[in-house]
């Protein structure tokens, strides 16, 4: 299924997607959801022993009001 459709179907969740089709730049077009969860760490744990090309992302929008980000590294 189309990646963008998968994001809409599982909105506001963390997704672990096995990529089944990519474009010329190797960007995912289609995939299969292996796991969806509100808990990010479940997704991180589940992908550990899978050798396939996987896409890991949060499917919701970041809150804009009252939300600020300061990273480090």
């Amino acid at each position, binding site marked *: 299924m189309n990646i963008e459709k998968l994001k809409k179907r599982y909105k506001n969740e963390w997704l672990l997607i096995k*990529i089944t089709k990519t474009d010329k*730049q*190797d*960007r*995912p077009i289609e995939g299969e959801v292996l796991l969806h969860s509100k*808990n*990010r*760490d479940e997704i*991180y*744990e589940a*992908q*550990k*022993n*899978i*050798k396939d*090309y*996987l*896409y*890991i*992302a*949060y499917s*919701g*929008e*970041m*809150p*804009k009001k009252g*939300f*600020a*980000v300061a*990273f*480090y*590294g």
Partner: protein
Amino acid sequence: MAKINFDPQSPVIAIDITLESERGIKRRIRVALDTGATYTMIPWEIAEALGYKPEMSKEKVTLITASGVETAPLIEIKKITFLAEGLNNVPVVCHDLPPKSYVTGLLGSSFLRHFKITIDYPKGIFEISRE
């Protein structure tokens, strides 16, 4: 040159990058574009899935976080690709961002310094190219 559109009102510019290891294992993750970060940062578990062993790394970096000072391993990822631009042997820090950050890591200067980048905030356009 490659470009993406972003929402100028979003608290971060979130982009997708692909990580590839010597074993041919690939992960595509959503990260925050962070021109102020010295290093690109990925979660420890993703590094392990790619076949790296962060705990064995002899190189460490010190991170100053809200909860104190932490030490994190530095590894070298075989290839990182963003849009059409790929870079080999990229130094990367293994460290988990808080879940509420909604991104999996950071794309920092250890990748970005190899490219010409332009951020047009009023128009919401990010461009990257090799000079």
